[in-house]
């Protein structure tokens, strides 16, 4: 372990900047966005310096810690506010600060017409600070602070245009769904404290071998619940689509590249819990598998470009969660997919934003068409992201997704076939719905109104898109060459020396299978969307179900919301009639007694004297009885 005193700046700089922008108010309108971008860029510089310094060191010395202060000290329970930067967290820190900075730059142009741009950048900085704290905390409790912080930033940014009631509702929905997950995290912290007496990662890891299986499964399940809430995984996935109400840069940064991947970070960070509890690991696999198919299916029916991308995000994170459920071999691939996804999905979201920017904020893809001709840079960068996500070699997604499919099949037995099959099927559907997005948006005939004048976005917007596109092209190859990322992460996720005993199928075969199903998906999409009606056709019952997000909201409404409301009404009724009745009864009795007591106070000295005499007699009687 190495100690450093620089880590705190990663969090302090954006936090202070956010506070300045919020507190100064309109005074900072002129330069607020510049300060925020500068601060975000400097966090990236610090992260880069730390990264290269880390590469110079070897072995255990690579991890860096910084102890800030004693936060809680109660009896035997001690929590230090300490930061930990190891091989795992540096990946996240670089992603957050790097992509974060690009999106800051993009937002300068994207939000230039919004008179609340300063507040937007303040929230972005707040998000960066909270997210960095989340990945830098050295204990579950420190992580929890960041976890809640990103939740708050996400809530504020989804509802950034809360003058529209629907957007405010979307923000609230995200917040509530996240609360469910947050309860999981707080319960996990409590279980960890009850079981191990500590909440630090190292402390819990050291205690795991001595803990009971039941406790570990409980802990794992609660961590998984937390991850499901934050990463929009089944069954807490419903909020992500609505979260697209936020400005598009937010969707790119928070709801695609970084915050929604916090669940993957949490599970990877807690690998010792899941490694020791096969039950919890299986739950992770199921959640990941279900979500990846769920998201992919939802993505096939979305006409709103951002919602299609959101469904895709859900599905891709499903891949990552699935990979973390595969044990030590899977963690590195989960992180690899997370990083490549960070590039290509953020890039595509920015592309979508660029299209919307040129199309008067139109999001319905049925009203796009042939935009590639008028917005060539956007089309090319988006296209590179598309090739990456469907997994065409040598683009980034190919390496990361292929590895996950391969590892899934290698899990062995029925489990391997089921999980691998789901991953493969997901790849086919991904190819279908992403091709659909491309076809509807960039090719074909123009279907937009005459009022729309699509044009290429300004350079402040397309430069970040180009940089992200380069990442979508090259990052997978870089991570995979010489197993660079796997070896880099091996000390953290305990994967050293782990090899699957037998391969289900040769790696090449699996790659070819994957490419085959991708080709099928692409072909179907191209054939089906040769002509695109401006109004969506009615479709059969299945289409309708998929359009309604596989009835996720109907399910939540029927199963959770309405019974919940009925229960609330019942309790309110109880409160009004029964509990308030008691309270009013007590109050009434006291008031009545009071009125009667007032009557005794009649103002006559003779009565008062009589009361005194009665009192004296009572005293004497009492004494007489006591001493009897």
């Amino acid at each position, binding site marked *: 372990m190495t100690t450093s005193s620089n880590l705190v700046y990663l969090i302090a700089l954006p936090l202070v900047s956010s506070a300045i922008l919020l507190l100064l108010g309109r005074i900072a309108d002129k330069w607020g966005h510049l300060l925020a971008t500068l601060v975000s860029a400097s966090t990236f510089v610090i992260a880069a310096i730390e990264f290269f310094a880390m590469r110079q060191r070897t072995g255990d010395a690579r991890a860096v810690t910084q102890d800030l202060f004693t936060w809680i000290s109660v009896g035997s329970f001690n929590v230090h506010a300490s930061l930990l930067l190891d091989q795992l967290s540096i990946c996240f820190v670089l992603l957050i600060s790097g992509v974060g900075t690009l999106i800051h730059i993009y937002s300068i142009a994207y939000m230039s017409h919004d008179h609340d741009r300063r507040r937007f950048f303040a929230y972005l900085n707040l998000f960066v600070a909270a997210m960095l704290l989340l990945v830098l905390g050295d204990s579950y409790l420190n992580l929890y602070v960041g976890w809640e912080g990103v939740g708050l930033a996400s809530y504020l940014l989804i509802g950034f245009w809360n003058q529209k009631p629907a957007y405010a509702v979307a923000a609230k929905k995200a917040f509530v769904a996240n609360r469910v997950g947050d309860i999981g995290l707080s319960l996990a912290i409590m279980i960890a404290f009850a079981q191990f007496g500590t909440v630090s990662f190292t402390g819990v890891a050291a205690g795991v071998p001595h803990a009971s299986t039941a406790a570990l499964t409980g802990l794992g399940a609660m961590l998984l619940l937390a991850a499901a809430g934050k990463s929009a995984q089944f069954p807490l996935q419903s909020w992500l689509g609505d979260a697209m109400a936020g400005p598009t840069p937010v969707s790119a940064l928070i709801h695609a590249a970084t915050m929604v991947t916090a669940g993957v970070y949490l599970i990877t960070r807690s690998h010792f819990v899941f490694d020791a509890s096969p039950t919890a690991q299986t739950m992770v696999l199921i959640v990941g598998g279900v979500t990846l198919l769920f998201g992919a299916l939802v993505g096939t029916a979305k006409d709103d470009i951002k919602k299609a991308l959101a469904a895709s995000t859900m599905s891709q994170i499903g891949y990552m969660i699935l990979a973390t459920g595969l044990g030590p071999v899977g963690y590195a691939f989960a992180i690899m997919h997370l990083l490549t996804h960070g590039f290509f999905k953020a890039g595509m979201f920015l592309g979508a934003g660029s299209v919307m920017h040129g199309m008067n904020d139109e999001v319905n893809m049925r009203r796009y068409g042939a935009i590639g001709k008028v917005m060539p840079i956007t089309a090319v960068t988006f296209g590179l992201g598309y090739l990456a996500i469907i997994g065409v070699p040598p683009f980034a997604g190919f390496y990361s997704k292929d590895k996950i499919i391969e590892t899934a099949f290698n899990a062995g037995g029925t489990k391997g076939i089921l999980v691998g099959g789901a991953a493969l099927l997901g790849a086919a559907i991904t190819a279908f719905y992403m091709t659909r997005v491309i076809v509807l948006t960039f090719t074909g005939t123009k279907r937009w109104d005459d009022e729309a004048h699509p044009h290429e976005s300004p350079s402040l917007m397309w430069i970040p898109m180009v940089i992200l596109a380069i990442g979508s092209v090259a990052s997978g190859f870089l991570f995979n060459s010489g197993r660079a990322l796997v070896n880099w992460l091996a000390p953290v996720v305990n994967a050293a020396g782990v090899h699957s005993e037998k391969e289900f199928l040769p790696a090449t075969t699996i790659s070819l299978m994957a490419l085959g199903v991708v080709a099928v998906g692409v072909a179907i999409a191209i054939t089906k969307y040769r002509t695109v009606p401006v109004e969506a056709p009615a479709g059969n019952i299945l289409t309708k179900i998929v359009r309604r997000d596989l009835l996720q909201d109907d399910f939540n409404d029927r199963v959770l919301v309405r019974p919940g409301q009925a229960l609330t009404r019942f309790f309110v009724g109880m409160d009004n009639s029964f509990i308030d009745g008691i309270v009013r009864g007590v109050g009434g009795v*006291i*008031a009545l*007694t*009071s*009125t009667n*007591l*007032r009557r005794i*106070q009649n*103002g006559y*000295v003779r*009565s*008062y*004297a009589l*009361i*005194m005499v*009665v*009192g*004296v007699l*009572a*005293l*004497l009687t*009492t*004494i*007489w009885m*006591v*001493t009897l």
Partner: protein
Amino acid sequence: MLIAPQLSYSLLAPILIVLGGALLGVLVEAVMKKGSRAAIQTAIALGTLVLSFAFLWKIHGQSSKTAAVNSVSIDGVGIFLQGTILILSFIAVLFIADTDNFAAQASAVPGSEDERASVLAGKQQTEIFPLTLFAVSGMLLFPIASDLITLFVALEVLSLPLYLMAGLSRRRRLLSQEAALKYFLLGAFSSAFFLFGAAFLYGYSGSMSLDGIASAISANSSNDVFLLIGIAFLSVGLLFKIGAVPFHSWTPDVYQGAPTPITGFMAACTKIAAMGATLRIFYVAFGQAEWQWKPIILVIAILTMVVGGIAAIAQRDVKRMLAFSSIAHAGFLLAAVLALNTDGLKGALFYLATYGFTTLGAFGIITLVRDSSGEVTDLNRWVGLGKKSPLAASIFTLFLLSFAGIPLTSGFIAKFSLFTGAYESGNTVVVVVGVLTSAITAFFYLRVVVMLFFTDPKNDSVSVVIPSFMTRAAIAVCALVTIVLGVAPSLLLDTAQTFATFIR
């Protein structure tokens, strides 16, 4: 041969100085011209109290002593309470100095031609100042008296001036005189019980001193009827003064009828003196017989809290409401008698001091709320005062919150330390009832706050007059003490801890 008794004048000096000041005041009333009397009387009263406090300060460090042939005990509790009484009396005199509250000529028949003539002539008698000082001297003696005769003398010295003072209100004079007469009659009644009890105790122990009674009790463990009747009757006299149920009936009528500054003075200083004497008697003299008297004090404490708390709810007059509130507080204080330990004693000392400041301040505010015919004490007419006079209403709210025992006011710390002492000594019942009653009392205090701030003012001529400098200073000090001792209670709590000892 007759040996002159050793009086230890230096230890008695605080009391003697106040008596001297009172006599000087009588002379001034007789000799000086009318126009300058009020100012001179105020100066004499304030100067006397300061001088007395200075002498008290001189002896406060001395180890516990007795003086005047063992008839008074100068010990920690005594000195603490004397100091408190002196400071609070000083503040009370600041309120009393606003002579507008008092009858121009007390001897004139209410509503008569004489009265109107004296008012028109601008006459203002100032006998209130020497009367106050006489009462203060009795109050100083009451909590340190350590034999029954001295106790009775002190009781009468403090009571007689108060009977008169209660009748000196300038407005609503009939009500005021009625209150004075009631107070006098019932006070005499209770004094008779006190004397009767003293006689029984002498009959039991053959001694008038508290010490002698205590040794008689420990020497003879049987349940002597004389002792029990003596305890019961003596208690009646004391419980009357502190306003405990069922000897409380005079309180609301007298508090309402008396001039408001005098009500404040009585509520704060009389309660401290009487409570001090009660604590001394039960701790020093009856401590060994606790199993005989604890049940009755317990019942009285509970009755006092409950009746005071509940009866206050139905009151529509702010002075009557505070009267019942003071009855409830007397009940809380009786928990310290039951506690019989240092913590309880410390709690009681702190409670008495902070309660005194808060009470004086609250009654001080009441003197300011007036219409064209004088003070307005009808709560219904206080509605919306917070909008007209936010400062006065806020300060009054502060005092009410302190009465209710809300944290960050001195009242909270006082209740907390008092109940802690009682709880630790095993008096769980009284603590539970006390806390529940506190909740009831909080209701009517907060109702006043709601009336002040959250109800629209009626079109009514009630307003807060601009107070004189002395009144302002006095209210400011009371408010400051209420806050400071709520935020930093250790300033006084530590002192109370050091002083919480009786000598036997």
